[in-house]
């Protein structure tokens, strides 16, 4: 059983127009097996929350704490956070020219498991992860995210989620740019990872569509850098009907 605890998190970013405060005190606790949907309008700071927890250098934490089972995540380098059990499925996965998917996955698995996975079992593992997400085997020889369609990038992210087996995953708008079929396939991947590893999930999204496939236990409305309302799945339905207008004006 793991717990990711975010307390009073305040984050700024340097822009051409000076320092801008984006997160203004975020409190959130996620336990293994729980799925928390974070919903909110564009620019409310949802992605900043995701990237700050993962340790992107662009963001400066000015106040607050993030701990995983009591360990101070904010003190860790980006790779140490992954080793501690965090995973970020990115909205815009980055192209790495000249590095094949198979090389990348094996390097990551080696780093996270502390030893190189045995070649024979690893090949089977990757193959079945790809099959489960309806991915062409030729995918493994392509360069990481290079020339991938939007849907391929998201499948690749979720394939990593299944292979790398984190304790806590933040899915940053994994649903964006997916058609209905791809959304279903990707959601099934997330559900398999939840099932297999008792994964805790922070699901960041604009839309309620993905919540039909990945059932949230909690829904948080995010606006202007903080959580402004919390509830169960019924809150998502209310948002579906009314939109974010009530929260944005606050």
């Amino acid at each position, binding site marked *: 059983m793991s717990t990711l605890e975010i307390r009073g998190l305040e984050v700024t970013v340097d822009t051409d127009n000076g320092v801008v405060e984006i997160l203004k005190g975020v409190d959130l606790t996620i336990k293994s097996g729980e799925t928390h949907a974070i919903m909110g309008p564009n620019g409310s700071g949802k992605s900043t929350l995701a990237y700050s927890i993962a340790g992107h250098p*662009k963001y400066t934490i000015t106040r607050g704490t993030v701990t995983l089972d009591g360990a101070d995540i904010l003190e860790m380098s*980006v*790779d140490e956070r992954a080793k501690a059990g965090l995973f970020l499925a990115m909205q815009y996965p980055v192209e*790495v020219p000249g590095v094949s998917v198979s090389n*990348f996955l094996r390097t990551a698995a080696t780093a996270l498991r502390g030893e190189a996975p045995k070649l024979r079992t690893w090949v089977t593992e990757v193959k079945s992860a790809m099959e489960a997400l309806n991915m062409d085997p030729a995918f493994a020889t392509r360069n990481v995210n290079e020339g991938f369609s939007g849907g391929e990038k998201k499948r690749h992210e979720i394939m990593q989620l299944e292979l790398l087996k984190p304790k806590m995953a933040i899915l940053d708008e994994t649903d964006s740019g997916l058609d209905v079929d791809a959304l279903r396939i990707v959601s099934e991947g997330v559900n398999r990872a939840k099932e297999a590893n008792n994964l805790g999930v922070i699901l960041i999204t604009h839309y309620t569509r993905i919540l039909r496939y990945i059932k949230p236990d909690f829904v948080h409305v995010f606006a202007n850098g903080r959580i402004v309302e919390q509830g169960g799945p019924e809150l998502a339905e209310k948002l579906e009907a009314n939109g974010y207008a009530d929260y944005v004006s606050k």
Partner: protein
Amino acid sequence: MSVLTTNYLTPSGREEAWRFTPLKRLHGLHDGVAVISDRVSLSVKNGLPSGVSFTREDLNPLAQSDDVIIERIRGASKSVSHLSIAANSEIAEPIFLSRSKGAVDTAEFSRVRISLGSNARAIVIVENTTDTVLAEDLEISLAPGSDLKFVTLQEFEAESVYAARHHAVIDKDATFKSVTVTVGGDVVRILPTVEFIAPGASANLLGVYFATAGQFFEHRIHVDHAVPHAKSNVNYKGALAGQDAHTVWIGDVLIRAAAEGTDTYELNRNLLLSDGARADSVPNLEIETGEIIGAGHASTTGRFDDEQLFYLMSRGISVNDARRLVVRGFFNEIVLEIGDQVVQDRIMDRIDSELEKAASNV
């Protein structure tokens, strides 16, 4: 050795062609001070297939050169190491030429000729290793319809100086591809130059270089489109790490008035991996006719992409492994063009170890 009666114009460093080169580190190759030994270091590594010969013979130069070091070599020796591939020979396995042990207190003047007869096909890989001071006039003659992949590996040891011109003269419908890899030596200055003498030919000049602290690597490309309907592509990628690592890439492409239907593109990308390193990159297109298919160039010099490193590290990969992956990935596209797995692995390992060395010095 013949007597030096010619008055060579010793470069001062102010000339365009020499403005980047650290003349003081050339061991006197440019000003005649170097003591020339009579060693001939180049030899065939394995046996030669039929249709291929490697001999020492007196040959006149294929083409003129305005490079003073090349002139000095030619003034000193008529004798040439000649790798000849007979017309219509198709040699599938690479022909390896390698170096015997050199020396840095004396210099070697080397003349080399690689010639392919009509419709011959071959892959030649030159392994430039050892510690040496070496000036080389290497000329390549491609008869009509021939096809050569020419790989040169500058894997010299730390004190070496290599000043060379690799000049290809390409006849009708011939195909020339070069892969120039420079990862070792104190000063390496190569002039990869190409001259088309009949239509329908193509040249693909590829290169990678990795300079670490104190190393100077210069690649001064010249492609002369003097005839119609020839195609050229230039793609060099370099990385630099460490104090006073310095690379120079010059890409001169000349499209003469007669060269209608020319198609050319040149690209140079540099990755600066630390402070204190300097990459000079000067693409230069001179176009004397508008009747061409295409002519373009691009040059970029940048640092590690933080987003790439973040992505890799967010999957648990350490910063050093992430950097190694990115650098390998950067060079991969061109190193794979060598086509020989053993050589490719060796070059990638060398790049890894250079990177490691540079990282430990930071």
